[in-house]
């Protein structure tokens, strides 16, 4: 053997080999999907469930000279890339007269800032989420308007939380006030959405002909839907509208797949294995890799990533936490439980750090991919025991194309709406809104 074994860049999906090293070497710098040479801004929102151990989360000092708390300690190498935001709140996650159901409300409010309608059946309703608002405006430029990923399917049984439909706790992206978007949880399927079916069947088809057939098929079924709509009532028509909206999104994908900017898998990156990795850390890292890949190849600029569903009862044997997350989040002040929660919080933060680190490792233009990102990480529950919805644990990463100065801990006045942050993020991607949901103004101090 005469040379070093080359570093392979394989998304394996099992075990721990999920490295995507030196991506910048693999993708030649290209014009982005809209033909612009300047890197576009990307937004991602990560949600973790059940609140946190508040005492171990928030740093003491403010400003640039703060010290990371125990839970945030895995972010030490990335301290200059992170903002810790304290004092933000989601008022609409509170009961406000609707009684129990904080978990369901939290997930559905997290990016919408809207009060979920309390129902476990018909008429689910929240609001358009910030990512989807951005996707509607920016999404036409990329193959996928947005990407929704997560590690747990929508829950399968019963009403999920005190009379709230399961849809509320298992989705954060809301395309319309009545349409939460499901997430993709199978890494291979995520890959297929980004780059097309990796199996041979699709590769061997005559692509142009397939696109022609697909478009013609869409024309026929659109007529079907139009004809059907005439004989139906309002609620039925809403279902048909959803159908038509989905048809349109497929049309767009067919178009962009044919265009010059069809997404190309970077050389050396292979589709991950089918199925869900059994080890949670490896699984979450793999999903993070895919998110990075999606941003790097400009397949999409918007993503939501639910580390778990709200109210998740996952166990974490690899860090010696064998109780369900939700069960112990009701810690009742018990120190043992609080310690376990802290461990879980730290694990999730570490995973977020992995994602941020990956984004930072990708060169883009003069800087890194992370420079052109805005990442929000957090939960719409503060303390899992109290179910409070202010003093939320929120992290921000990225420089928003140079408009944000990370490396600080910023404390906002009590009950500052989280939606103020969203409004400020929308500004930066060129979407000027008067307000977003319950926002009261722009979030000051992001610039430094």
């Amino acid at each position: 053997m005469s040379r070093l074994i080359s570093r392979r860049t394989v998304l394996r999906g099992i075990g721990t080999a999920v490295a995507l090293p030196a991506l910048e070497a693999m993708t030649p710098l290209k014009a982005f999907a809209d033909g612009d040479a300047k890197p576009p801004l990307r937004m991602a929102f990560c949600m973790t469930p059940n609140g946190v151990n508040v005492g171990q989360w928030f740093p003491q000092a403010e400003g640039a000279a703060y010290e990371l708390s125990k839970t945030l300690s895995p972010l030490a190498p990335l301290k200059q890339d992170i903002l810790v935001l304290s004092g933000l709140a989601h008022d609409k996650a509170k009961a406000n007269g609707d009684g129990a159901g904080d978990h369901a409300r939290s997930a559905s409010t997290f990016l919408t800032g809207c009060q979920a309608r309390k129902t476990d059946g018909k008429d689910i309703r929240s609001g358009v989420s910030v990512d989807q608002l951005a996707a509607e405006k920016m999404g036409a430029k990329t193959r996928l308007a947005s990407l929704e990923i997560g590690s747990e399917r929508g829950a399968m049984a019963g009403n999920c939380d005190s009379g709230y439909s399961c849809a509320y706790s298992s989705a954060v992206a809301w395309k319309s006030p009545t349409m939460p978007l499901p997430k993709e949880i199978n890494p291979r399927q995520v890959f297929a959405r980004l780059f097309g079916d990796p199996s041979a069947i699709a590769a061997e088809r005559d692509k142009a002909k397939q696109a022609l057939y697909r478009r013609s098929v869409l024309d026929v079924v659109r007529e079907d839907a139009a004809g059907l709509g005439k004989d139906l009532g309002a609620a039925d028509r809403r279902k048909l509208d959803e159908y038509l909206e989905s048809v349109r999104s497929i049309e767009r994908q067919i178009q962009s797949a044919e265009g010059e900017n069809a997404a190309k898998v970077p050389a050396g990156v292979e589709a991950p294995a089918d199925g869900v990795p059994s080890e949670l850390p490896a699984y979450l890292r793999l999903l993070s890799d895919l998110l990075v890949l999606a941003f790097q190849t400009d397949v999409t600029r918007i993503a939501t990533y639910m580390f778990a569903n709200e109210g998740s009862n996952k166990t974490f044997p690899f860090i010696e936490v064998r109780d369900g997350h939700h069960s112990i989040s009701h810690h009742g002040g018990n120190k043992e439980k609080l310690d376990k929660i802290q461990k879980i919080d730290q694990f999730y933060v570490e995973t977020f750090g992995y994602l941020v680190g990956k984004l930072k490792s990708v060169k883009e233009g003069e800087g890194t991919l992370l420079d052109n990102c805005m990442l929000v990480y957090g939960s719409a529950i503060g303390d899992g025991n109290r179910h409070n919805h202010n003093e939320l644990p929120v992290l921000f990463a990225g420089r928003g194309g140079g408009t944000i100065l990370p490396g600080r801990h910023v404390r906002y006045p009590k009950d500052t709406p989280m939606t103020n942050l969203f409004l400020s993020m929308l500004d930066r991607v060129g979407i000027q809104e008067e307000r977003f949901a319950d926002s009261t103004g722009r979030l000051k101090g992001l610039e430094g």
Partner: protein
Amino acid sequence: MKIGRVIPCVALALLSRGESPAQEKPIAYKDSVQPLLAKYCGKCHGPVKPKAQLNLEAYKDEASVLKDRKTWKRVLDQLQAREMPPDDKPQPSPAERELLTSWVEGMLEKVDPNAPRDPGRVVLRRLNRVEYRNTLRDLLGVDFNPTVDFPSDDVGYGFDNIGDVLSIPPLLMEKYFAAAEKVLDQAVQTPEQFRPRTRRLEAKSMQIAGGGQAEGETVCMFGNGEMQETVEVFLGGTYVFRIRASGDPAGGEPPRMSLRVDGKEQKVVDVTAQRRDPRVYEERLALEAGKRRISAAFINDYYNPEAPRARDRDRNLYVDYVEFHGPVDGKLPEPPAAHRRLFVAAPSAGRPRREAASEILARFLPLAFRRPLAEGELERFLKLHDLAEKQGDSFEAAVKVPLQAALVSPHFLFRVEKDLAGGDPKGVHPLTDGELASRLSYFLWSSMPDAELIDVARQGKLRDPGVLEGQVRRMLRDPKSRALAENFAIQWLQLRRLEGYQPDPRRFPSFDEPLRQAMLQEAVLLFDAVVREDRSVMDLLGADFTFLNDRLAKHYGIPGVEGPEMRRVALSDPRRGGVLTMAAVLTATSNPTRTAAVKRGKWVLETILGTPPPPPLPDAGELKDETDADRRLSLRQRLEKHRADPSCAACHRRMDPIGFGFENYDGIGAWRDRENGQAIDTAATLPDGSSFKGPVELKNLLLRRREDYVKCLAEKMLTFALGRGVEYYDSLAVKEIRRKLADNGYRISTLVLEIAKSYPFQHRRNRSQNPEGAKDE
């Protein structure tokens, strides 16, 4: 109008009722309710500047309340959540609050006997994953499993077939598209599939194991190892492989390349071509159909830095690509059964191609759309065939295109029930026979109607005397009715949560996947046996037999059951038998590390008695262990302390005693007499005063609550059958179903049949107005 979870059950006041169907003492509005409303609510919600524009004095009598159920539903929620009256205002006593809430609940359930009957309205229903799979199976004869790829279906009212919540987001539409292509690739055999074709695997994008690295277009293998890729081979046969390669010979030998299929060596090639002058090596290999792993391996690495001549020191192999072409001797196999079923006509001398395509579609489309075709519909789909024909596709390939369109059409993906054309927008009308046939088959089979049912419906005979009953009984006998156990029963019992549930492996080392599957199967098989043998629905609670395999029998401590297959076992010990004492239920209502008495109690109230407790108060929290003394208490003692808080007691005294009764079953449903060395205290008293000790006595008490149980089961099954929540106007139908059940010995076929015959199952109304004039959305 949304009633939601309060409907199934008139809660607290009825807890004490025994065997006889509910005849609760009426609460008088004028004498009992109005004074309380005036006392606690009137200050803010009176005629003068009422808060939230709610003036409770405006409701002079019960009739005025009935006209405004929506407002009173909100009042009920506020009362139950203790949001009202506000904390700083005088509070009603627990008894007063109970009186108010049970009165409102009673009102919300009341039907005005003089109003026209309302069958409700089911929203356009998308096929859920199970229905989609079964429908493809019955339509095409192809098994396609969407549970792997498709997003899970949202759940409403405890079931995943509720029209309101089944949405169709872009992700799902993409899946439908891909699935349509995939199943038709499986079902239809086209000549195109078998034309020899060439496929090139670029070496640089193959997976490399061992000593190799891509260098531009070439992969350099500098140490032993291989490059490989897995490909789909459509048709087995001989394939010509062409590999462009070169090498650095050293040590007197050229590099040697092994061609492997699925890791097995097929041919070995000496690559004598020099690095600068690569050559294409050709070999013929046999490939079987299916997924095949193709690899080219370097097998004789050599490295000797001491060799005198520099070019004799390092042996390497270079590969540019691996190409294969074939099959060159492929024989067309017999088309699969699915293909033969679809292609009922073929072009011939006397039959032009378009005519044959038209025949095929004229048979297929009405089946796929579960209705006769409308004018011009066939022509629109035929045009897709024409388009593909112009592209030069074979007949089979061209017919595939309209078939694909049908499988993503809203007529296929949704179960459509049309409004009565030109009818009164509020008009109530019976379903067409075709619509009724679909409702029946999706209720009993989770799939499309079969030929016989379609035939009866097409002739308009489905409602002839005895015909509906005959069909229902036939459908129940059909093996497909197992869907009722797998979809209805498993969701009714809330057992889908068992699927992803992971008890702590340290506490419960015996729990593993086979045991989980056996637990679920036990529940499915018991329900299915009750259906097959047309037993009483009471057997679901108190059967003296069950279904076990070796693992589950061992778990239960029942000897003499060997082998992994599930089989029927007679039970002599009443500690098992029926769903209440099934491991599946007991596990799904536990926490990963311990039992959860409250969850078990809540489960019984929700799924068996139909009297779910209201949600916990926002500030309830869970058990607090604030002091060391707290921590020394047993779980039961701590729960009892929690109940000392009057705001918690009202519900916990309903849930906890039931849970205590099942404490002999551990967190995965195994029997135990002691916990942590202490004897388990399973004695408790229900709110109606009846006391019991242990699960057997408790089970007997619950069996005596037959009317509550039957009402609950009937409502759950009606929800599943209709695909919507049960509303107040359905209570008459539920009452009729219960009466017939009592008359027929509680046989399950009566339950199913009476649901199929019921007013809401047989009728629908136009648009969104209901006859009482209240808007439903």
